[in-house]
């Protein structure tokens, strides 16, 4: 069998972004004298970029369908959050507010999806108008003012800051105190165990069905990823514990990973972007595929609204600006194709993490916030140009 020998060049191309991420992490670790790897930094990285992971997951589906994007997510995040905050400020039950935020996001997604899927309005125009309209709506709801959240339960559950972590049940049970947070370690340990077991099962099934994939390669990958997870968990445990926002991020990423790899609709998303004609000829209703993508990102915008409001302990009319760009950039840096049909959740995660690391690193080193935007733009452009040119060389 010769499928598994990969030349050095091909290896680099496939794992470019991972390598870039590693390089950048090391760079900033050195530049900040190790501060960027401190527990506090890791915690910040996760909680500040929660919304990026959530939105980028939804954006990935849209991009898969053919390079289509959703420019309205930032405004929808703000609008959904605004409604939720106003509801909670008026003593409405927290869970109703949460449902409202998710519901608004989903409804907007379905609405925009209608114009894009059925009427064939170009995606960027439909969502550009949404970007405008929903920013306006959110300002109407907020009356131009910031609205604070005081509902403790809400803040705890959705990650509103350093105190929002899963309490250390194990220590409480055993009566010990202090750090590290054992519950967090336990969660991390279980996660790693589950992951390793899944890999083992995968390998054994492959053996049974005679499918050939490099076993040492898979073992090494699993080990590396487990190591990274372990490191992160340890840092989090040393600080306060498992941040609640991470629960939601993990949930979303897990669901989208599942959708894109194991469901029929996931396949159809890739197929529509790869060759829409062929997909239609295979009996797939392409219209529903587009609709699904936009409905899902609408829902994610609602969730991102919840997370944003929790982290900031309130909502301000200018929140959400630029969110769509972060999400889009994460997907493209993570290897999604501007023409559709290619892109993975794992890539998107790397893209989002890379953007987050660069942002945080630049902050810690003290780079002017405006120059940070310049870097963001250049990184995005570089990733896309690299992608387009490497595809051209193959031809």
């Amino acid at each position, binding site marked *: 069998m010769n499928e598994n020998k990969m030349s050095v060049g091909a290896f680099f191309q496939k794992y470019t972004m991972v390598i870039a991420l590693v390089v950048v992490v090391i760079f900033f670790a050195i530049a900040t004298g190790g501060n960027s790897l401190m527990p506090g930094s890791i915690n910040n990285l996760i909680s500040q970029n929660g919304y990026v992971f959530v939105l980028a997951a939804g954006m990935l589906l849209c991009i898969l369908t053919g390079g289509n994007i959703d420019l309205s997510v930032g405004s929808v995040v703000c609008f959904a959050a605004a409604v939720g905050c106003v509801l909670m400020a008026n003593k409405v039950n927290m869970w109703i507010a949460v449902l409202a935020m998710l519901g608004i996001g989903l409804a907007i997604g379905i609405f925009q999806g209608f114009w894009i899927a059925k009427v064939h309005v170009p995606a*960027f125009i439909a969502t*550009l108008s949404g970007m*405008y309209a929903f920013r306006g709506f959110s*300002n109407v709801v907020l009356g131009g003012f910031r609205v604070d959240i005081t509902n403790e339960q809400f803040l705890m559950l959705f990650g509103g800051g350093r105190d929002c972590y899963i309490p250390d049940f194990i220590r409480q049970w055993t009566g010990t105190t202090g750090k590290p947070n054992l519950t967090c370690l336990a969660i991390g340990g279980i996660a790693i165990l589950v992951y390793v077991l899944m890999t083992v099962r995968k390998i054994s099934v492959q053996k049974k069905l005679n499918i050939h994939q490099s076993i040492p390669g898979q073992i090494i990958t699993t080990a590396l990823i487990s190591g990274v997870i372990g490191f992160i968990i340890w840092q989090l445990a040393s600080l306060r514990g498992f941040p609640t926002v991470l629960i939601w991020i993990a949930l979303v990423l897990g669901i989208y990973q599942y959708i894109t790899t194991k469901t029929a609709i996931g396949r159809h998303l890739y197929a529509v972007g790869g060759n829409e004609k062929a997909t239609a000829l295979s009996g797939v209703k392409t219209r529903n595929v587009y609709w699904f993508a936009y409905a899902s990102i609408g829902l994610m915008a609602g969730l991102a609204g919840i997370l944003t409001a929790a982290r900031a302990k309130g909502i301000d009319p200018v929140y959400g600006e630029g969110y769509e760009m972060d999400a889009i950039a994460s997907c493209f840096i993570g290897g999604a194709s501007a023409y559709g049909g290619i892109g993975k959740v794992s890539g998107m995660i790397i893209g989002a993490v890379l953007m987050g690391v660069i942002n945080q690193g630049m902050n810690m080193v003290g780079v002017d916030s405006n120059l940070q935007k310049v870097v963001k733009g250049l990184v995005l452009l570089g990733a896309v*140009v690299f992608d387009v040119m490497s595809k051209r060389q193959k031809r």
Partner: protein
Amino acid sequence: MEKSVVNQSTIRKADPVSLLKKNAMLIILVLVFIFFTVMTRGRMFNPNSFAALINQNAYVYILGCGMLMCMLTGGNIDLSCGAFVCLLGAMGGMMMVYWGMGTALSIVALLALGVAYGCGLGALIAYVRVPPWIATLAGYLAFRGLGTAILGVSSTNSISFNNNPDFLNIFSGTLFRTPEGELNWPCMIVGIVGAALVVLLIFKNRTTRLKKGYEVDQLGMDVAKCVLGAAAILLVMFKLAMSGGIPTTLVWVGIVVLFYSFITSKTTIGRHFYVVGGNIEAARLSGVNTKRIMFIAYLNMAVLTTIAAMTTMTRFTAANADAGKNFEMDAISACVVGGVSASGGAGTVLGMVIGATLIGVINLGMFQVNLDANYQRVVKGFVLLAAVVFDILSNKKKS
């Protein structure tokens, strides 16, 4: 003397329904204008409103011409123009205020920047084949940051041009200013000349076509066009005359709009833009250099952005960090509302102008009735969506 009859001209039948459809936006514009005049108890009809319309929307007309050319090639847009305006403002501020470069030299340098960006962007899109909206998205992200960083040199994050009267006078203000309420004769004369030209052109066209035996509209139609066109010009110029004179921005807008009107309707390169958007393969096989057209579209856009930047800088007499916000949205909206096809190959400068004016009237009107700024944004968003849907649906029936 024997008259050599080439052919008898056929007279186009006036079909009221298709007439309505073709001029839908214009009719809507008139109706909306009347609506707001009523709602504001006549304030919309004041001379100041007309002047405000021109000054506040100059950048839309200018950027709209550039965006039109990009959209013609196939629905492509430029998301970076607003941010680039901010950057140019910052650079202009540095040049004129901090580095003491003269006005003329600064203007040339800014244009050079515009050309440089345009060439880079054009090359990326046309030759490296990066999709336009991503290529310009990078600029959208980067330029505002860069501009704001440069403006950081001033504690207020803005640079004032108050000490550069030359610069201010070239791109803003009024020509031959007279006090409000007094009829400004230069302005009125321009209006009369303009109206006369329109009538002349329409009838010259008609007689030439009759002579050569081409199709003509019914006489009534042409007369109506003359009357309406002349009346519109006279009205606008009269109002401007009462508001103090010809706004300088009107001159720039006029030059740009007339220039692009000419290019799109009468030149070979303008024709190339339409066919590239209509059927790029057919264009290629007919000898059109499609890559070069794409390159020119974005180079052109960058240059027009530079001009729009200068009108913005002078209007606010300063370079600000949030200059240019939403400019791309406004330009795209003007085009789309004005009937420019979102898939390319169709659209006119006149349409864009009507679209831009309609949006401008809606903005001004909402402001004058004191509609909450946030509802204004909502309205803007839905107007854009409605225009595109209308465009798509009406085209569906044709094919």
